[in-house]
């Protein structure tokens, strides 16, 4: 009753069989599958987003362009394509903390963050991020003062959100590259802040 897809063989065998069928029909090329996997497993990831953040922290004009038209500003650094076609960047300030979720599926800005971690796709995060964002942030170790405004962005359409975290204190002398190394994926989803140099987990 629960499984509407009927009695299916174990999942690994099912995927293997499906690939075989699709290859035999000439609909997929195994080399293309390898390329897709390699792209998202090893090439595209949160280092891209970190570079966008570091650039915004060091270049006020870029920051302005990023907040005005994120898709174009991110494309300047070469990050474009699938699941990043329509980007929006939301900026954290001392008064406002932003946090991103997709309650209906697991939409995520692939070109800048890669594929989402399991928790982002999980039912607990999807259910609670909108209902109890402060409770979720607390589980991530972030306790926000009551007066800070928490804005949760539910990615229900084709817009994809990237949080521009606050630049930590004590980073005045750092290069753009050194700054990028401080920026975590969690901070760009909005479930963490960027810590000062040396304080990274």
């Amino acid at each position, binding site marked *: 009753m629960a499984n509407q897809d009927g009695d299916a063989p174990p999942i690994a065998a099912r995927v293997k069989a499906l690939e075989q069928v699709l290859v035999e029909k000439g609909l997929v090329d195994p080399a293309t599958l390898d390329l*897709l996997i390699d792209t998202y497993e090893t090439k595209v990831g949160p280092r891209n987003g970190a570079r966008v953040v570091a650039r915004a922290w060091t270049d006020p004009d870029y920051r302005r362009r990023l907040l005005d038209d994120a898709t174009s500003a991110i494309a300047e650094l070469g990050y474009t394509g699938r699941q990043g076609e329509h980007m929006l960047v939301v900026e954290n300030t001392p008064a406002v903390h932003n946090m991103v979720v997709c309650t209906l599926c697991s939409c995520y800005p692939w070109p800048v963050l890669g594929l989402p971690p399991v928790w982002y796709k999980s039912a607990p995060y999807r*259910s609670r991020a909108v209902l109890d964002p402060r409770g979720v942030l607390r589980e991530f170790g972030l306790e926000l003062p009551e007066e800070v405004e928490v804005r949760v962005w539910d990615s229900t359409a084709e817009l994809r959100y990237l949080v521009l975290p606050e630049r930590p204190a004590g980073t005045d002398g750092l290069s753009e590259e050194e700054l990028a190394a401080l920026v975590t994926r969690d901070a760009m989803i909005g479930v963490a802040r960027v810590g000062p140099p040396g304080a990274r987990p």
Partner: protein
Amino acid sequence: MNGGHDLGGMHGLGPVEAEPGEPPFHEEWERRAFALTLAMGFHGAWNIDASRHARENRHPVDYLSSSYYELWLKGLERLLAERGIVDPAEIGHGHAAGPRPEGMRPAHDPETAAAILARGGDARRDGAAPPRFRPGDRVLVRERAVPGHTRAPRYCRGRVGTVDRDHGGFVLPDTNAHGLGEAPQHCYSVRFAARTLWGEAASPHDAVYVDLWDGYLEPAP
């Protein structure tokens, strides 16, 4: 649809659990299911809205007890079966029982695939009706308990928010998922006070922003 996928605001689903290392894939079949879904998507035999609906449109127990890539696989199998591209029996046998359907092109080679990925899929469209709302307008999310695909979460239906920005004209998932055309409409970011959505359980300072299409909304009374 009011389905098991519409999770915003549910209790009882447990704590958010961190995972050491957080690999994007945990099993080889996840890699292949992911890549098969992307590669078959390149054929254009369905759109992203149809593929989301193929994943979500199932018994809540099936949805909630399936892992993420398991849902991708189940969605892909359903799309292939519904369109007569792969019969479930072929997967059972592990071999194709016939050629690819007429009109479908051969597999995309790696270069073509890379170009498609890089291009992405622009969902913005000209030709939407003029926007009925402007930033600052107070809007009510219409209740539409339809069994098909929609992107208005239950938690904001019947609630009043404020238009924050107009994203422009976008393909409408409600029609597009069902082969009823792209029917583009303006899509807005709508801000809801958290207390409007959850009552006094929520902080008076907080807000939730939801992207909603023009037809999902009416002027607040």
